[in-house]
């Protein structure tokens, strides 16, 4: 499937955080031809394993190739039913929605059946000037699916999810607009990188992961737990970042169409960043630099502190109008990210593995030294 078609299919699929099945099915279907194994974490993240094709020189360790995990999240921000109120649906947001984008949107209510609906509010004509001057508060919005109260209650229940009903639009210059490009455009890059890896030799085991539940809360439970399960030697997150747009200063934004941002800061392992830079330069893949003083606000923040710590990197895909239903990206950025990720993965070798190894030094102070305690606790 072409990148464009996959992007469209993924964007238009519904998968609010915690309810990603429809998206994970597409991802598993697309990864399956290029993976040796597909599995699921206990929370529902898709984990595709592609084993190393180059065996390692040291026979004794041949069975244990180092592991690279790269990932993007498959969930999207959305809405959830809180109450059925005299024929209309009251709802809350799952993930951070600016309530101002909700008014007059077409939605899909994922109840017993999928029902089209409209986010309604009282008409401006009947409001006071003061009320008209303010955004409609979330509590005053409701969803109208055009059914009687009784029929509504039969089909929809508290806790059902709701997504914005939005088709992808093709804009000029290879740019696309749609919902859930955060982070499905990166999911396309992850799948494409896995595909490209089937054309080349690679010395590390590759885990391509599609994580659930990134948008809800602050714990990144999907990535935190699937990364614990895999415990890779290196982890790379792919997520979107703000592209330059009116009202967004260049201090906090990257250019659209000029390649992924290679992130820096406390969240990022310097050796991993340096390798990404080196691969991007040698393969002449456009890229930019982004820097974060603390949390990157992505799965990378969680993955870095999994178990005994994971060297982590982050590719930032440029995107305009984040968390609206007209998120805008350049297809070229997906291509560049996928190429960079695949080339990076294929170039990982013994010497990079050694560069990453934690420095251990035994000091001769007489006593017989056992390595057990230093290499991990008794419960690992």
């Amino acid at each position: 499937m072409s990148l464009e078609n996959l992007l469209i299919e993924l964007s238009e699929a519904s998968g609010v955080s915690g309810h990603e099945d429809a998206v994970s099915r597409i991802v598993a279907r697309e990864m399956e031809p290029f993976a040796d194994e597909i599995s699921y974490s206990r929370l529902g993240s898709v984990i595709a394993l592609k084993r190393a094709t180059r065996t390692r020189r040291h026979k004794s360790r041949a069975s244990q190739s180092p592991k690279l995990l790269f990932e993007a999240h498959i969930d999207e921000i959305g809405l959830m039913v809180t109450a059925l109120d005299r024929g209309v649906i009251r709802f809350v947001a799952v993930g951070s929605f600016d309530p101002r984008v909700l008014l007059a949107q077409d939605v899909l209510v994922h109840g017993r059946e999928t029902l089209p609906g409209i986010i309604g509010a009282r008409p401006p004509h009947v409001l006071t000037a003061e009320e008209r001057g303010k955004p409609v508060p979330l509590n005053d919005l409701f969803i109208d699916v055009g059914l009687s109260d009784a029929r509504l209650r039969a089909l929809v229940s508290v806790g059902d999810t709701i997504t914005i009903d939005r088709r992808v639009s093709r804009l000029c210059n290879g740019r696309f607009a749609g919902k859930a490009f955060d982070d499905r455009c990166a999911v396309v890059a992850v799948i494409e990188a896995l595909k490209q890896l089937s054309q080349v030799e690679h010395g590390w085991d590759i885990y391509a992961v599609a994580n659930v539940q990134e948008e809800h809360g602050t714990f990144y439970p999907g990535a935190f737990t699937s990364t614990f399960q895999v415990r890779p030697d290196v982890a790379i997150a792919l997520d979107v970042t703000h592209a330059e747009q009116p009202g967004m200063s260049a201090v906090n934004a990257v250019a659209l169409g000029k390649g992924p941002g290679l992130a820096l800061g406390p969240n990022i392992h310097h050796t991993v960043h340096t390798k990404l830079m080196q691969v991007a330069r040698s393969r002449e893949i456009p890229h930019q630099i982004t820097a974060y003083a603390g949390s990157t606000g992505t799965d990378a923040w969680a993955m870095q502190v999994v178990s005994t710590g994971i060297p982590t990197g982050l590719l930032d895909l440029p995107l305009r109008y984040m968390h609206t239903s007209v998120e805008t990206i350049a297809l070229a950025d997906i291509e560049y990210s996928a190429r960079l990720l695949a080339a990076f993965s294929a170039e990982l070798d013994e010497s990079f593995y050694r560069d990453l190894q934690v420095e251990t030094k035994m000091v001769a102070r007489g006593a017989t030294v056992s390595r057990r305690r230093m290499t991990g606790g008794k419960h690992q």
Partner: protein
Amino acid sequence: MLLEKLSNARGVSGDEARVRELIIDAISDRVDEYRVDSLGNLITLKRAATRGARRNAPTVLLAAHMDEVGLLIVHVEADGRLRFSKVGGIDDRVLPSKVFHIGENKIAGVIGMKPRHGLKAAEMDKVIEADDLSLDIGAHSREDALSVVQIGDYATFATEFARIGNGLVRGKALDDRAGCALLVDLLSEEYPFDLYGLFTVQEEVGLRGARVAAFTLDVDAAFVLEATVCDDSPKEKDVSPTTRLGYGPAITLADPTLMADPRLVKLLIATASENKIPYQVKQPMIGGTDAGRLHLAREGVPGVAVSVPTRYLHSPAALLSLRDYRNTLRLMRATLPRLARGLTPVI
């Protein structure tokens, strides 16, 4: 003096290598083993002295963090000014009119501001937010600036360590290089149990290093050595000074990240009283430390924090008393051997 070298070394969260190298130099002949993990934590192990070691002795962890607050360069303007983000908690109000050292080459940069001449009274009432400030390194243009600094470079306060007043020292990053120096000193002693000396990274951005190191290790008690808030300036209202300079080590009972293990608190207080070492109780529920992550590792670890009172934390020049430093060292030296029998279980 090791504290002086450590204070002057640059090591903002995520960039602790120089501090770590200094510490490795200082401890390499005092420990049995050390390693640096994937986040950059320095984990050292000092095995039980052969004499006096007990079977089933506990394993004890002492921790101090190597990182300090600072700035991260995130963007370069066309005119060569550097835009930055704060790494860790820095009060915006301390930034204007300060000098920083940026990157590997310690490029000097200053944070200027509009002269007060011609400012309206209302403008002078406002705190200038960090987002509206920039570092001036004297560059002519973006290209000029990028020839000496890069996006992703870290900047630290350009403060030189000095002794001032009556037995006080002034320096940047005393939070928590004071703890690091204490831990180095404690590693020269022998103990009747295996002792891990842990120098963590990224405390200031969310106790990140401690989290993974605590998972790696598997210990029976954890002590965090810190430099903590001291608000003992004269005040009208009778409120807590949090800690007071010159009144000895401050013991944490509870803070927003930790309820200290009562057995460890009791042991510290008993030891201080018996040895006539001055101590104070830190005002509860102020500030968090690495103990907040260490005590939640795996199935849980009894934890406590012991701190040197320090004025003006997270600013270019913090102030602490060497007498407090020495008393903290004395308290820890006297307390640790008493852990040889382990702690009584909770019932």
